[in-house]
């Protein structure tokens, strides 16, 4: 409990300590590296549960109806849980966890690739440490606020603005590549910020601050865990910032079978 409170305190007030890893301790033998990776994966899984379980219990996620496997009844029934509910919960939990896991994997690839490219890498473990802590705390916070926006009736304008920004981002890349793709929800329609209530404005400000924490934590991770210079750390953050572009380009290529070159 005390450790959790300390981590929350560090996450809010001391991001450098939160994402900072003991690099020398991590540069050990393979056995130590495996132990460190296992520990970090446990941290990530723990944070994932803390993030995804409340979302799933709140009804997020859309898993198509499917019959629960018979073996599940043997586990769920003694716990007083209906096999159908348990199966539905597990499927939606996996779905809700997938977004953050995918985002973490992409962030890790971009972050570590960048520190490797700039020759400032001190190993995989410090990168994994940085990404596990930054994504499972700050990025999960960003996702949670976005979820909140999508459900709260009193902050509709902020929700529309965030969706609009995402659509505009995707369509900018679609238009740049010349791909003949359309999003199911169509092109973005203008959303007036003038209709934003104080709750909308506060929600958008919170989102911006948590996003700032996420970016700053990656910068600190690069500086502290890899001993990168300010310039290299900034480049690393910019590389991670380009990850959504790569993700959208990859999605376009997957949809079309190839990436159109304009």
């Amino acid at each position, binding site marked *: 409990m005390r450790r959790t409170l300390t981590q929350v305190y560090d996450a*809010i*007030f*001391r991001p450098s300590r939160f994402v900072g890893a*003991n*690099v*020398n*301790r991590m540069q050990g033998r393979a056995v130590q590296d495996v132990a460190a990776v296992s520990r970090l994966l446990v941290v990530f899984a723990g944070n994932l549960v803390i993030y995804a379980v409340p979302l799933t219990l709140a009804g997020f996620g859309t898993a198509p109806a499917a019959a629960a496997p018979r073996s599940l009844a043997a586990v769920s029934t003694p716990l007083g849980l209906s096999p159908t509910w348990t199966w539905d919960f597990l499927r939606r939990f996996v779905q809700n966890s997938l977004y953050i896991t995918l985002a973490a994997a992409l962030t890790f690839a971009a972050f570590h690739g960048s520190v490797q490219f700039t020759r400032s890498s001190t190993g995989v473990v410090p990168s994994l440490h940085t990404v596990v802590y930054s994504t499972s705390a700050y990025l999960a916070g960003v996702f949670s606020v976005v979820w909140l926006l999508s459900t709260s009736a009193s902050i509709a304008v902020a929700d529309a603005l965030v969706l609009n920004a995402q659509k505009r981002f995707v369509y900018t890349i679609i238009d740049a590549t010349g791909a003949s793709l359309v999003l199911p929800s169509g092109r973005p329609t203008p959303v007036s*910020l*003038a209709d*934003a209530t*104080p709750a909308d*404005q*506060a929600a*958008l*400000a*919170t989102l*911006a*601050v948590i996003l*700032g924490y996420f970016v700053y934590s990656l910068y600190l991770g690069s500086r502290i865990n890899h001993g990168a210079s300010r310039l290299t750390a900034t480049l690393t953050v910019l590389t991670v910032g380009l990850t959504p572009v790569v993700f959208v380009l990859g999605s376009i290529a997957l949809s079309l079978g190839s990436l159109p070159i304009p």
Partner: protein
Amino acid sequence: MTPDTDTSLDDAQAPDPRPSTQPTPGESHAESADGREHVRFSTGPSPRPTAVKLGAAVVVGLLIEAILFANPELLGSPEATRIGIYIVSLVALLVVARLLLRVYLLTRYRYVVTDDAIRWEYTLLYRSRARELPLSELRGHETTRSRVQSLLGFGTVRFLTGGTNRSLGFLAFENVAKPERIRELVRRRTKRE
């Protein structure tokens, strides 16, 4: 505790008037004779550099907010500017809360140099921690001064026996007055070891 009133750094120093580890004049060289600890120097970190940062954070935060309030169209529209004000307020609040906590926590630290060891002590809400490095194990020390510390005459002295800056073999005397003299005292004691 008033951290700025640290004890003399001379080897034949006056005793620290504060509790626990201070020797009485009669005990100044008692360690070898009766096994009791002889404190050569004792102080705490000064909250002043952090207080200066706190003041700067408040002033800068208020200044940015004043500019945004005075120019509602600065970020494109009054609503966007209002969001900017919220962001600045949130960040300023976090920074101020962090620095206020730090100012309080700094008053709970105590740094001690004895004849054969350097020690860091910390007490908070009936919890206490202490870390001690034997001078004979000391492998290196460094003194640093940030800009604010330089302006106010403070500095940070770090001592390392081995491991890393997060291991038990590391101690830092943060925001101490006359850091060079502390370092010199430790160096002299180390040579004697």
